[in-house]
């Protein structure tokens, strides 16, 4: 299964290339002439709302779907038309998909047994893989007896024990509670750096994508809207769609927006003041505090300050807001109805 042979370019080992790939389901074009080049050893996230084509893209790489047009390459070698079991990739599924009739160790051994790896080597590699995810002591239990986080680790070990050149992860942290999710994000990132395996990670959680990835591909309607490093995606979104999806935005007009954390707020008039209004809602979110400010012209402004230097402002209090012109984001495409940025939803619950 390892492909460093003459058929592919050895220096592309672990790379994934999608060349003009399309996939249609009935009338909808789930993936639309997609161009994507994942570098060897890279942690790349496919980010977008449900229905944007990110999961279909992952399934095209895994081989669960075949493209209607275009070519898929893994490690530089064309794999279009090959079934999943002939591809040097493994998947961590959204709901883990652990075999309920096999023990944890047998789940992890499954892929190695398919490759007819000898018994002793199977035992060693399974033990190593389980130790890697700190699940060694649960080896002989059934997966149904494990917690969500533990099942997640087993699923990871089951995929990684095969030493695939590319690991595909389909929202693997979605079923975990928030604290565990953040822990696992960090662990996944460390693991990926240690192994040097290419990770393609699908998520609709922008925080998750930004925290772990080398690069993030923001997807919309089967295409990539922007592909860049997390910092660049956040600081310089290429479109209003990306800006609204990655973090929250205050749209001053259809083409101009400012991030909530770039706005200064205070009870007294301040230099460079841009707007004035009254406090409609306050939400203390731990390390940050959010204010929803109603402006005179009925527009609303979301302001986010670090809690330790947030001003003491009560509800209904008249306030002044200021920002730096340099922090404004300008977009050619304009904010349409498709923008999933509910300014109010996040700010009204105190």
């Amino acid at each position, binding site marked *: *299964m390892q492909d460093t042979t003459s058929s592919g370019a050895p220096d592309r080992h672990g790379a994934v290339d999608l060349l003009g790939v399309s996939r249609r389901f009935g009338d909808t074009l789930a993936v639309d002439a997609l161009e994507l080049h994942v570098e060897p050893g890279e942690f790349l996230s496919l980010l977008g709302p449900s229905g944007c084509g990110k999961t279909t893209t992952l399934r095209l790489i*895994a*081989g*669960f779907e075949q493209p209607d047009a275009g070519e898929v390459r893994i490690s530089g070698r064309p794999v279009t038309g090959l*079934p*999943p*079991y002939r591809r040097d*990739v*493994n*998947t961590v*599924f959204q*709901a883990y*998909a*652990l*075999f*309920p*009739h096999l*023990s944890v*160790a*047998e789940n*992890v*051994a*499954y*892929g190695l*047994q*398919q*490759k007819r790896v000898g018994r002793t080597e*199977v*035992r060693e590699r*399974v*033990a190593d893989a*389980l*130790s890697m995810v700190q699940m*060694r*002591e649960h*080896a*002989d239990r059934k997966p149904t007896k494990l917690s969500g986080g533990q099942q997640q680790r087993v699923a990871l070990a*089951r*995929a990684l024990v*095969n030493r695939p050149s590319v690991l595909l992860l389909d929202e693997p942290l979605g079923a975990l509670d928030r604290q565990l999710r953040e822990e696992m994000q960090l662990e996944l990132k460390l693991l990926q750096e240690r192994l040097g395996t290419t990770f393609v990670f699908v998520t609709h959680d922008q925080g998750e994508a930004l925290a772990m990835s080398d690069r993030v591909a923001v997807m919309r309607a089967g295409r990539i809207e922007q592909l860049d490093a997390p910092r660049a995606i956040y600081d310089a979104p290429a479109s209003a769609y990306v800006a609204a999806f990655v973090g929250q935005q205050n749209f001053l007009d259809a083409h101009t927006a400012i991030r909530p954390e770039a706005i200064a707020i205070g009870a007294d008039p301040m230099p460079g003041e841009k707007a004035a209004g009254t406090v409609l809602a306050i939400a203390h979110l731990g390390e940050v505090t959010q204010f929803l400010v109603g402006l005179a012209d009925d527009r609303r402004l979301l302001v986010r300050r670090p809690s330790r230097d947030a001003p003491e402002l009560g509800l209904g209090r008249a306030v002044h807001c200021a920002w730096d012109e340099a922090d404004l984001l300008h977009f050619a495409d304009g904010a349409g109805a498709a923008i999933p940025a509910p300014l109010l939803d996040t700010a009204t619950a105190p």
Partner: protein
Amino acid sequence: MRARPGFLLALPAWLWLVVFFVVPVLQVVWFSFGRKPGIFGTHDNSVLTLDRYAEALDPTFGTVFLNTLWIGVAGTALCALIGIPTAYWMAVKAKPQWRGLLIALVMIPYWTNFLVRTIGWQVVLAPEGWLSTALGALGILDGPLEVLNTRGAVLFGVVYNYLPLMILPAFVAFDRVDPTLREASRDLGAGRWRTLFRVTLPLAAPGLFAAVILVFIPLMGDYITPSVLGGAAGSMVAQLVAVQFQAGQNWALGSAIAVILILAIVATAALGYALFRLVALPFAAARRVKLGAP
């Protein structure tokens, strides 16, 4: 204490089972130890004896028992061989939008009365029936079709009659296996056949066993199919029981035959299961990975 409301809910079912199943079966067992007292009596338990069992195991009845066992095992095996792949195809391979129609196609013949369906086959399989004429006209058959009133006709009839009872539970069993598990198997390097044998079949196994039992038990006790299609050569135990209870007015002997039939069914099912486990054992052992404590 918490079990009480649940027990009360199950009470009608328990009562039903005791009154209409446990008591009659015990009564049959009780009669089987008695005798037929005279020309006009049906049973008498004043003297307890095992003589009826000796009578029931007489070679004349023995051939009917063997016949029944042969039809029961062969019929169930054929139903499984046809029904399980069909159910797999319906649940896994067929497009989901066709499922409703496929299930209806399996069910519709089953809505027709059991006796009417079987008599229908009697008409078709008769030596002067249209099938015989058609096969003769095509030159496939030389002379009339001689199937009716043989063990083969009964086998054919029971497979036709019991196939839906195999397909429906097997369909449910396959349908309940999460499709992402098959994807995971393929993702881990297993092809279609290995995925079938290592994931789909093991996970569907309890439902498939239920389907086999659901066909085997009523098939062994079938009365209508052999009566209509079997003639003398294809008779089954249920007919013997009916004859003893009705025409013979010998409830004691009828009961003894019925008890032996019940025991034969249980023993065959147990033997079949043991045989299956014995065959599967080495395969399961080869794949076992036990790491023990670190």
